[in-house]
């Protein structure tokens, strides 16, 4: 499994998890020149931009790898998405991180709601 395939695999797991938790999936892998948004979903009338992060082992949690630059890219990409769908300032928005840790036996999923906001 190369890096891209691996990413896609865990994004599928995240998507499955979201569906089970009554989220409506709107987009997968939305690309912009600022970067990529893994999943865009909706629940209770709030638009949610989700970053999926995976890490092998338990030493480092997936969510720890979302740094300032990544957050900024996600926020900028979200702005581009909202503009493209003509939704700017019309919808409540949230940024989540789904963090997946795995080893040979098991996979743990942690969902962090409202993980970060625009500074």
């Amino acid at each position, binding site marked *: 499994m190369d890096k891209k395939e691996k990413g896609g695999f865990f994004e599928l797991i995240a998507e499955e998890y979201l569906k089970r938790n009554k989220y409506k999936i709107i987009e997968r892998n939305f690309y912009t020149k600022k970067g990529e948004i893994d999943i865009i979903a909706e629940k209770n009338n709030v638009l949610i931009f989700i970053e999926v992060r995976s890490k092998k082992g338990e030493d480092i949690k997936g969510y720890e790898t979302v740094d300032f630059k990544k957050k900024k890219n996600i926020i900028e990409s979200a702005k581009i998405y909202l503009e493209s769908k003509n939704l700017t*300032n019309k919808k*409540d928005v949230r940024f989540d991180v789904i963090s997946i840790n795995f080893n040979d036996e098991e996979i743990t999923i942690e969902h962090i709601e*409202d993980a970060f*906001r625009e500074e």
Partner: protein
Amino acid sequence: MLAKLKSATYIGIEGILVDVEVDLSKGLPSFSLVGLPETMVKESKERVLTSIRNSGFSLPFKKITVNLAPADLRKEGTGLDLPIALGIICASGYFEPDLLKGKVFLGELSLDGKLRGIKGILPIAILLKEKGIKEVILPYENAKEASIVDGISVYPVNSLIEAIEFIKGERKIEKFEFDKEKLFSDLSIYDVDFSEVKGQKAAKRALEVSASGGHNVLFIGPPGAGKTMLARRFPTILPKMTIDEALETTKIYSCAGRLPPDKPIITTRPFRAPHHTISDIGLIGGGHIPKPGEVSLAHNGVLFLDEFTEFSRSALEVLRQPLEDGFVSIGRAKSQVVFPARFILLASMNPCPCGYLTHPEKECTCTPSQIRRYLSKISGPLLDRIDIHIEIPPISYSEISSKKEEESSEKIRERVERARKIQMERFKNEKGIYFNAHMKQKHIKKYINISKESENLLKDAMEKLNLSARAYIRILKISRTIADLEESEEIKPNHVAEAIEYRALDREHWITL
């Protein structure tokens, strides 16, 4: 959705009302604070958001905009945390905006949603009374201080949750009341007393004159003579603080964050004794956001400068404005504030670097030029503002071991209060003049009624002791106070004679060394 509520903060020592407006709009979730917030207020963002979450509310997924009006005044202090948090919660729809009307909210939030006390409550409470705002909700720690002011209802709360429950009417909080009478009844209780000082009759008398007429005093004496001991007891013979004076002084302490936690009001005259290494800013006040200095903390009390000549020249020179005007005005790029600073200056110094120049037994080892340099630290204009200079001789064994009962502070204070009353009557039509020491040239002509005999004595003394014109005026003022102490309308020769005694530095042998 928009929520509006009232809060307050302070600049210098004056309260200002602040309108807190919170707007939630759709968009990328963010928090912006506008309206010239200083660092302390800017940081409230993190405290507010975290304490809202930890109080069990979910933050709205919206763009949060907080405006602090009037937008052209700089806001400082942490008291705006509570109103900002309440505004966000209200705008998120947890309760009706109308419930916030007519109340003022103050308080700093901790991360778990509990409330902490803030500075500057008294000036804010005075402002609320002036503006006719009846209800204030604030942290428990501040309840006593706020309720000193009559006519406003103080509702203390412990946490953000309690505040919300109270606003929604789900929790009953009694209006905070405490026995104010008791607080003011112990105006002037000191733990030192003049009866503990043995001997030093002349110095005690000089302090009595100083307390009566508001004259500044300079003690000159060898080490160990009791200069500091006398100085510490000086506030005990000053007239009791009036309630207005107590409030004025408390305002300064409140904004400086110096109020003792168990005592919401300063009831005894302050005694400030800064170390001689103090900077001029520390003495006069200042800083990026101006804070009161020692002269203001000594307002309505005593500023004691021990080892007067060891203070830096610049620190001493800045004393001139407050000594003259009774206030300091501090200008900085960001703000201009005026702090009251009406105090009696009490300074003490040795007669020479080694300290023993005037000692009856010990030998002074200083050269005349050393002494001259030492004394020249105190400039003419500054000395000009010190009416009484008196030598403190070392105390003898027989005086220390004497069993004789010394006069208590209370007895002396009674005389001082009587003399002050006479002055109050005299200067009731003169603006800004409270004591004999404040008299200007025109008042001297008007109020100093000197007998022919005293006039002759003064003339003799001037010629024999080579006194300057400056000394002449000072002597007249001091004699006026001494006459007031004896409740005499006319200044008699013995009053003038005593006053001349209080001009040690004008006498020949000091200057010609």
